[in-house]
């Protein structure tokens, strides 16, 4: 749907402010493989939207489930 990907990114930015939000946005970019700078309100790409939604779900899982030894 036209504009859907843009909407997802904007909503993600709104809901993820501050220090943790910036790191979460970076995780979203790496997880999805999608550069938000390339997403315009005119974009209409269902595959990309689905990838983005999947990535949003993945990074929204609390990182506390990861072990501290993972660094």
């Amino acid at each position, binding site marked *: 749907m036209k504009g859907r990907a843009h909407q997802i990114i904007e909503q993600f930015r709104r809901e993820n402010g501050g*220090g943790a939000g*910036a*790191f979460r946005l*970076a*995780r979203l970019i*790496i997880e999805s493989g999608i550069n938000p*700078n390339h997403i315009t309100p005119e974009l209409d790409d269902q595959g990309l939207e689905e990838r983005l939604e999947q990535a949003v779900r993945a990074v929204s899982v609390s*990182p506390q489930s990861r072990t501290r030894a993972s*660094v």
Partner: protein
Amino acid sequence: MGMEVISPLVDASSTLDSPVRLACLAGPLLELGPDPVFDRAVEEAARRTQMPVALLSLVMSHVQFFRAQVGLQGGLAQTRVTSREDSFCQFVVITGKPFIVENALGDSRVPQLLVEHHSVRAYAGVPVNLGDHVVGSLCVIDTVPRRIGDSMVRELVALAREVDLHLEQIVPPILRPPPGERRGTLDDVAHLRDRAELLLAALAPVAAQLPQGGPGGYLESWIDSVVSGDSAVLELVALHGQIADFCHELAARASTLPTALDADGALRDQASATVRLLAEAGAVIRLLNAGSSGVIDGAEVERMINAMLECQQLVFALQREAERLLRSALAVLARHGRLT
């Protein structure tokens, strides 16, 4: 043994920051797990010199990482990292010779942070080499001034030679493909270009978020964040893991490129550099994460500040390396008439 005098003619930065030297610091060198040879070296160093602390320190571009240690206490034992500029071991790397401090208090040759915060008084470090490069130091430390004789230095040198031999055995030629592996193509170069762009996009919000300048309002809020264990640090830990995997994939891909595409090895070297920087960032983030878990108490907040600033510098360095990788990939693609 007399005091080692560091010649002002020695170009410290070019030695410490030599890309070839830093490229040695990868793979098994930076693992956290036990290693029987490294562990024995530090145990024997402490025993033979009667010093309470012995370290195998790898001196990286921003930090020193203790690959093996005995005698460290508290947060240092867990994080195993300090800022390079606060280290004594940097002088072993710069000079390529043993570095001796019999009473560090007020000794103008050495940084005073570890002297003040960890009561370092006596230090003896000898070079640890990989090939032609000094990668770090095998050192012993005491919290009281000590006379350090030639025999003690000879013991350390002998143990360091064993470490050198072990390094030769465990460190493979860095990220080079074994013979017969598939050879990369222009598609792989285009992939590197896309991944470098993506890495830059991911790093932009991170760079904007890390503390700017020196101690100030933002930095204080970061310290509060770390000490209170808020999710920013955990997000940073998670992000680090993701980017590390991402950069390993980059480096593996770059390593397959034939010389026809990567004649001077720039793509391979730049991709490898991202892996190395990520490994180094891991050491710093470990320190931040230990702080957020309460292992480091409030008195060590200065170390936390330094870790945050180191983290920021590493993000900037990673950005620069990703930009170089992007430019190199674009140049290769342009040379082969592939501009989109």
